[in-house]
């Protein structure tokens, strides 16, 4: 099990960033749970990896309608398709801000020296994401505009409960 302080940081960061940047409220539908299976994406997902004393990855995953609404609110522009370049790059940047904010907090507490790789964002026909051999936990969230999922993975058991 991953230390709750780690996973909770990403959830809280996501809540704050989406509220402040996109005026969208997300609520947890439960708690973080171990999720070692393949993740069937809701439609639009972004992955950002980070490295320091430990290595890990943050995945945010959402319904296309929510991705469009986030892009609409941040850019003050109309979008009709989640595959539009501006929609995808906005989600990518949102993930960058979420991970950056959470990692800054974790670096201050645990001195992890986490540095971010650039985020990637993708969509496709029923995309499945897997990250073999790594501890991973998910939390299912919801918003007025659709489902939102956060998946946090850390290599090894460096900081586990």
């Amino acid at each position: 099990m991953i230390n709750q302080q780690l996973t909770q940081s990403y959830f809280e960061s996501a809540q704050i960033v989406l509220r402040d940047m996109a005026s969208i409220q997300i609520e947890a539908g439960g708690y973080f749970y171990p999720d070692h299976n393949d993740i069937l994406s809701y439609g639009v997902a972004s992955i950002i990896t980070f490295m320091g004393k430990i290595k890990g990855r943050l995945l945010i995953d959402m319904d296309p309608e929510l991705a469009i609404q986030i892009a609409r609110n941040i850019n003050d522009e109309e979008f009709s398709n989640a595959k539009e370049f501006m929609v995808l790059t906005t989600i990518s940047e949102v993930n960058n801000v979420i991970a950056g904010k959470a990692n800054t907090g974790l670096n201050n507490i645990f001195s992890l020296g986490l540095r971010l790789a650039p985020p990637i964002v993708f969509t496709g026909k029923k995309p499945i994401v897997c990250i073999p051999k790594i501890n991973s936990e998910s939390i299912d969230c919801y918003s007025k505009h659709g489902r939102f999922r956060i998946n946090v993975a850390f290599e090894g058991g460096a900081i586990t409960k």
Partner: protein
Amino acid sequence: MNTTYINPFLEALIKVLEQFGITGVEIGNMEKKERTQVTLDVTAIVGLVGDIKGNVAYSFSQETAKKLISAMAPGMPVDEFNMMVLSAIGELSNMTTGKASILLSDIGVNIDISPPSIIVAEEIYFIISPVQSIAININTPAGRIEVNIEIE
């Protein structure tokens, strides 16, 4: 993008494939892409952090993935696309990027690599860079591998 940073990834891929008996690998032209649409079903992505930052994505068809993994495990032909294949694809991309990081360190560029994330989807459309990436098609006897590299 500086090709000094690209070539080690290609050299590493050739060396890793040769290690598993896959020879006769041909490297196609480099192509600049602003948006990455890959028609191949399986993509393994590895993040890079250090003196340079970026992502490298290796894409395969399911058939090519099975052939490559069969070559990695001689005597154990892989007929089914399953978790074992995904895990082995992750290992292949990890080995390749790890070897590339050693080749980069030989020229004074130090990087750390992330664990690979693997995405399986039909007609995957992804953006690994808000600016542009470089795509290279690698033709192997097992099939085509598309490598997309983005370095900030």
